Each structure stands twice: as C-alpha cells, then as structure tokens.
C-alpha cells in the first residue's frame, strides 16, 4: 500500500497528468449524468416511489438551506446539493473494491473548498454589492478586518483539512486492517466509514451554507421569518 497522500497517475495528456481521483470523479459524473438523464423524463406530477424519494431528498435539502441561511433556497440548491451528493458518493465509493474515494485526496477537497470560497464571494457580492460585501470585513469594528480576512482563508482551509483528514484516515485504517487481518474483519470499519462519509458530506455542505449565508447577510426567508446570518 502506497502513501495515502500520494496520487496515482492514470495517464497523461501532454503536460496534463490525469490522476486516479480525477478518473473516479469522471466515473461518478457519468453515473450521475446517466441517472439524471434517466430520471428527468420519468418525472410526473403524480410521483412514483423512487420519484417521491428523490423529491424528499431535494425538499429536505431546500428545507436545510432555508433553515440555515434564512433565505430562499433556489439560488443555492444546485451548488450545495451537488456538493453534498458528490461528496457523499465520493466517500461511499470506497465500498467498491479497488476504488479509492476522490475525497481521500487533498486535491479534490481543495477543489471543493475553492469552489465554496469563490461561491461565498460571488453570492456575497451579488446579494450585497461589492462595497457592502467588503464592508462586512470591517464588522463589527475596523480592527477586525485582518482577522476576518484571515478567517475567510482559514475556514476554507479547515474545510479541506476536515474532509481530507476524516476520509483519508478512514481509508487508511481500513487499508491497514485489511492488510493485517482477514477479509471480513474490516467490514465493521467500512460500515463506520460509510457513516463517517455521510456525516462529513453533511458537515461540509452545512458549513458551505453557513459561509454563504454569512456572506449574503440577514434577510427575510422565503416563508417570511426573520433570520440571522450565520
């Protein structure tokens, strides 16, 4: 077993090196695209059981965004929902033998965190305007500007490290146990790893919501309730 921090290069295209996490991610993208293509024409106003389950997931995500951000969930649903589904499936991809979760590599987690970082700035400027958004760094006092700027980067870094550490450690431990014990011994740890993967997907998504919600600021939610920006 190699270093968990190393990424295996699958192939190269000129200067571009395509590593294993990228290939796995492509596989997940193909899987999700096919699922979306199959699901889309089958959506009906009278839902089947599978459609009801999918709608339940989407509605739960909308409720989570609404409760967390105190805003209408429509502008954020696609981004945050995709992040949740991708992280969840990436974490759970470890159950497939021979596949290492893309989120067990720091580049994938960094990519997700960068996207969240950019999204925070984008939604903040779109909601408040550039000047108002920049003024948020001076809250509550001007003295807080350096700390707020640092906090913007550190929280992004914490997103990366949290997800990477949890997933990588799970994969690493399962790999060690598998190399030391028999075939069935790592199964409880793999089940625990699935739970950890789901929890980490949820935490990453909720933190992204909180960061974006803090950037867009306090407003009335879609159901008319007054809320605070996180």
């Amino acid at each position, binding site marked *: 077993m190699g270093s968990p*921090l190393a990424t295996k290069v699958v192939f190269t295209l000129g200067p571009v*090196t395509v*590593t294993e996490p990228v290939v796995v991610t492509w596989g997940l993208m193909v899987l999700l*695209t096919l699922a*979306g*293509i199959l699901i889309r024409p089958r*959506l009906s106003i009278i839902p089947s059981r599978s459609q009801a389950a999918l709608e339940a997931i989407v509605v739960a995500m909308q409720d989570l965004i609404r409760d967390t951000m105190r805003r209408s969930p429509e502008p954020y649903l696609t981004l945050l929902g995709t992040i949740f589904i991708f992280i969840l499936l990436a974490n759970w991809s470890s159950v497939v033998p021979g596949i290492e979760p893309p989120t067990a590599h*720091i580049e994938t987690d*960094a990519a997700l965190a960068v*996207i969240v970082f950019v999204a925070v700035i984008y939604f903040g400027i779109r909601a408040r305007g550039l000047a108002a958004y920049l003024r948020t760094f001076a809250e509550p006092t001007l003295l807080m500007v350096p700390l707020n700027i640092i906090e913007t980067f550190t929280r992004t870094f914490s997103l990366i490290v949290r997800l990477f550490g949890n997933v990588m450690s799970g994969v690493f431990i399962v790999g060690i146990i598998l190399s030391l014990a028999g075939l069935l011994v790592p199964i409880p740890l793999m089940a625990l790893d699935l739970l950890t993967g789901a929890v980490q997907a949820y935490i990453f998504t909720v933190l992204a919501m909180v960061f974006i919600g803090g950037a867009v600021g306090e407003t009335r939610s879609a159901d008319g309730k007054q809320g605070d920006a996180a």
Partner: protein
Amino acid sequence: MHIDWWTLALQTVNVLILVWILGRFFFRPVTAIVAKRQEAAKKLLSDASSIRHQAEEARSQADKARAELDAQRLRFLDQSRQEAMAEKARLLDEASRDLAKMREAAAAAAERDRVACDSAMMRHAGELSLEIARRLLSRVPPDMALQTFAEELCREVRSLPDSSRAGLISMSKPGGTIEVLTATDLSDEQKQYLRRKLVEALGAEVPMTFRRDETLMVGLELRGPTTVVRNSWRSDLERIREELTDDGRLGKT
C-alpha cells in the same frame, strides 16, 4: 506533502461541470415538478375553497328558503286554525239555529198533538157526556123532556129582539112557514102542544112544519128564512166547544 495542481484544477472543473449537469438533469426538473404539484395542489385547494364557498352559499340560501317555508307554514297553520275556528263557530251557530228550529218545530208539533189530543178528548168527553145525558134522559118521560125543551125554546123566542121575532112572524104571510126540527118524531098531541106554546111565545099564529133531525140529539130548533132559534144538545155542545176554543181554555187544560 505534494499537491498535484493539475488534479486540483481538473477536480474543480469536474465539480463545476457536475454542478451544471445535476442542475440541468436533476435539481431543476425535480424542483419544477414539485413546484408544479404545489401549484396544482394550491389550485385544487382554491377550487375546493371556491366550491365550499358556493356550497356554503347554497346552504345559506337553502336555510333561508327553509326558514321562509317554515314561516309560511306557520302562517298557513295560523290561517287554517282561524278558518277552522270560524267554520266551527259558524257550524255551531248553524247547529244552534237548526236545533232551535227543530225545538220550535217539535214544540209546535207537540202543541198540535196536544191540541188534537185535547180536541179528541173533548170530543170524546162530549160524546160520552151526551151518551150519559141520553141515557139519563131516556129515564125521563118523553113529554116531560119535550115540555122542558119547549119551555126553554119559548123563553128564547120571547127574548129575541123584536126585529128577529118579527122576522119569524112575517113567515105567516101566504106561502111562508116556520120549520120546527125535533130529535124524535112527535105525536099529534105533542105537535099541538108545541104549536100552542110557540104561538104564545111569538104572539101570533104562524104556520109550522115539523121535521125529524137526529143530529139534534135532544131538543128543538126553530128555523125561519133569516132567523134560527136553537135549544138542543147539539147547539149547546157546539156553543160550548166554540166558547172553549175561543177562550183558549183547551190549551190551558
């Protein structure tokens, strides 16, 4: 620790592409279908609310119509009750009048029956008294009875007004005669006796003819063209009956 920047870039692009794909094929269609269902549910609720409103309005109108019908029914009942009371009063009044008429008719009929009964009783009593008198008289000698009735007849003749007595006397002119009615046939002696007594009473000789009339029962009657002098039981009974009837004493007995 080594970071593969190409992997970072590719993963960033991959996630962004995945965001677009899922947004196009999953999140937007699902949210659209949920919104469409919510719109349909809202429309159904709105339609249901509208229908319920219409139903409530119809029920309100039905309640109003029922209340009007109840009021109309009460009015009709009251009117019918009043009409029934009026009809009852009218029938009672009519029955009272009919009853009074029937009572009057019954009283009149009873009165008529009582009068007829009294009359029959009087007639019967008169016949009975006549029979009694006839039987008593049969024990009296015929001459004595004739003398008694002749004396009485003569006294009545004498008590006649002069004009009436003159009317009887004028019958003595040629062709005229006085008819003497008796209940029984008279002998010649009795006729002679009776003629002598009548001549004395009239004060003039008058031709007389004698004729038997059993309806007199007992007694005599003297008949002229304009004057009749009666002294018989028949005339007495008739007079008594007339007096009783005229005086109304029959109704009182």
